[in-house]
């Protein structure tokens, strides 16, 4: 156990920092520190260009194997890359669902043809993805998915009907991976399949959801006789649940280190304001700032524990608490930001409803504890899977 990086890694760190310094400027300068949570809808075209620029230098999908076009970085180097990217204010990745979720799923479960078809677009920053999981009545309960897909063997394609919700970046995506029920009448985890569906077609409608921030990162996606080629299924029909569960594991990767650097930027902002406006003299604020700092440090070492040691694929205890911890921490940070600002916190950037960066943090972080498995779901999972406590009894009435 050792927390310092090797001299070689430190050389790599400088390489990344230098590249970013030389490239994240000029036309891309305006993108610095943009596109994070609550800001994901901003500068979509410019950010895609930036990602293509990174791709040309080989800085997309840096953790993927070289065989699939990645850079094949070690875990330590990935940690460093993500830290430096966030430190430099690198904008939120439009391609993160492709790089972090769709890609790894295709690498793990896809056919050779699927890999050839889909991976280059992700590595090159030319094709973008979104995720079709949640549904209005299913919410956190994937087993309750109602979207259905039927294989039309005549035309050699899947036909999809249903509705997904809380789909971020749907209006910017070229492809969506959809969990759909392909076995009519099936229930629960059975009969689900994992389909890849093109977004640019008549049968797909994207409807933005207006959030409490007044902005719209999330969408509803309606599938009405949407189609995709019969080959665009990952695994076999009925494998959907298995693949979705494996994908949950991919979500907790090194990119969390980059997320933490964004959090650090936010905390630094708050500390700077507190020192300027006198809140730093308030003992209760001092305690809360120290607490936020402690939580962030711990988040870092939780993440490093997840990434260290043998990667046996099983979700370890520290991984199971990770989402619950950061989401709760982040929401508290949002409240802290407001309390540091004091009465000024109420004032908008401008009317009618243009939030300041910290107001947006305050409001948007209320969703952190809900999307991607709410705190309640996370606690169920921890209790049942990590602690071996009994599942909810089945209902009889």
């Amino acid at each position, binding site marked *: 156990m050792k927390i310092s990086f090797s001299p070689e890694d430190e050389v790599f760190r400088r390489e990344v920092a230098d590249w970013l310094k030389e490239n994240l400027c000029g036309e891309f300068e305006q993108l610095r520190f943009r596109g994070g949570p609550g800001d994901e809808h901003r500068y979509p075209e410019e950010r895609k260009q930036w990602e293509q620029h990174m791709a040309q230098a080989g800085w997309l999908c840096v953790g993927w194997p070289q065989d699939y076009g990645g850079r094949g970085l070690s875990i330590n180097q990935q940690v460093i890359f993500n830290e430096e990217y966030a430190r430099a204010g690198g904008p939120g990745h439009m391609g993160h669902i492709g790089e972090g979720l769709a890609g790894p799923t295709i690498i793990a479960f896809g056919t050779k043809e699927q890999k050839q078809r889909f991976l280059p677009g992700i590595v090159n920053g030319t094709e973008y993805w979104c995720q079709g999981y*949640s549904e209005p*009545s299913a*919410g*956190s*309960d994937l087993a*309750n998915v109602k979207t259905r897909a039927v294989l039309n063997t005549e035309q050699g394609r899947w036909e999809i009907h249903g509705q997904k*919700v*809380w789909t971020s970046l749907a209006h910017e995506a070229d492809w969506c991976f959809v969990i759909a029920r392909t076995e009519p009448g099936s229930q629960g985890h059975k009969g689900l399949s994992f389909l890849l569906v093109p977004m640019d077609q008549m049968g797909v409608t994207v409807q933005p*959801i*207006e*959030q*409490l921030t*007044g902005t719209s990162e999330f969408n509803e996606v309606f599938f009405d006789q949407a189609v995709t080629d019969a080959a665009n299924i990952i695994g076999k029909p009925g494998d959907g649940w298995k693949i979705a569960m494996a994908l949950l594991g991919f979500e907790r990767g090194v990119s969390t280190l980059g997320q933490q650097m964004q959090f650090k930027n936010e905390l630094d902002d708050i500390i700077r304001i507190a020192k300027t*406006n*006198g*809140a730093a*003299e*308030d003992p*209760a604020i001092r305690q809360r700032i120290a607490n936020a700092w402690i939580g962030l440090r711990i988040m870092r070492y939780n993440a490093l524990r997840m990434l260290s040691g043998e990667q046996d694929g099983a979700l370890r205890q520290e991984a199971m608490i990770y989402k619950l911890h950061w989401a709760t921490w982040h929401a508290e940070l949002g409240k802290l930001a*407001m*309390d540091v600002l*004091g*009465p*000024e*916190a*109420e*004032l*908008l950037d*401008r*009317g*009618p*409803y243009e*939030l300041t960066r910290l*107001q947006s943090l*305050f*409001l948007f972080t*209320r*969703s952190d*504890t*809900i*999307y991607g498995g*709410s*705190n*309640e779901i996370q*606690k169920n999972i921890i209790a049942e899977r990590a602690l071996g406590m009994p599942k*909810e009894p089945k*209902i009889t009435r």
Partner: protein
Amino acid sequence: MEFAFTEEQAMIRESAAGYLQNISTSADVRRVMSTEQGYDPGVWSGLCRDMYWQALHIPEAYGGLGLGYVELAIILEEMGKRLFCSPFLSTVALGVNALLVVASEEQKQRWLPEIAEGRSTVSLGFISSEDTQENRQWGSASVQSHARKEGDGYVLSGSWHYVSDGHTANVLILAAREKGVSIEDGIRLFVIAGDQDCIKRQWTPTMDQTRKLARVDIDGLFVSADCCLGGEESAGWPALEKVLQLSSIASAAEQLGGARQVMDLTIDYTQERVQFNRPIASFQAIKHRAADMMLQVECATSAVYYAACVADEYLSERSNTAGDSSKISDELLQAASLAKAYCSDTFFHCAAESIQLHGGVGFTWEYDPHLYFKRARSSEQFLGAGDLHRERIASQLLDSSAARSDV
């Protein structure tokens, strides 16, 4: 001692609930909050005419209903439930209380009847420092506007921040101090007409759209000495402080209403929302959190009506003896800080839980939890959040020579 509502009070609540239910639906709130004015003048004048609530605790001698603070708290609780957008809190909690506590008899005669008749709305501005740390305390140091004595009057200059409904109020009460004087007694309150050309009033858009704030700038306005509330020798911070304590109790009552309503609508939602084949209300963790909310809301209820009773006693002792004993004065401070601290925390907690327990739809614009959440945040801040008020209580308990924790 009888800590239950009288039959009359119960009737007042019932009629308030019924009236507000019609004029302050979710759609009404959304429509009105998106305007700069922040309230519907027709609805407001209708309310003034039909319900006469603006005159509720104005004594009958000045054309008011002469009711007490408990009745006022009932109305405010009901308004809080409906997030009613209006200048009621500014006019009644800040304006009327300032006049009742500080004004001379002549000034009361001059101003209270026109408020009672619904002809004027009022606001009060005092925070006027450019130093955020001073403003954070909502205390005497935040009063940094100036009133320079000149001839038979004063010249006012300054920038007042966070003035509730300050851009629309017909009457403004503004706190200012003599230049160079830093003591609490150097502060005076001035009552003036709001719509004068030399007063620059600007709406400052806010995160909580259901309550409007404004900035008021004045650069050298001459006001005659009879605008000085309570006369030139009166007022001072100690009097203004009492007004703010009374206002804190009013704000707490409104917070209580918000907390109770957002709890109720959340529990209703959990009864309807089915996940894993059951209404989520049937999950024990949800039930326990609902119970925690109810505990807080019930405690907040006790806090508000206890504080309202103290406010009643304070106002009646003050009007009977034209002064206040140190005992009731201490009690008002304690009761106000208790109610404001407890209700701020309760409302914020319940509103945050509401978003969480609504799940995905909880953070959409379409559903109502965010309206309560934003109101909870703005009202928590208004007149000072929990920590500040707890510190005030701690100072009474710990910094004096004798402990004062008398039950």
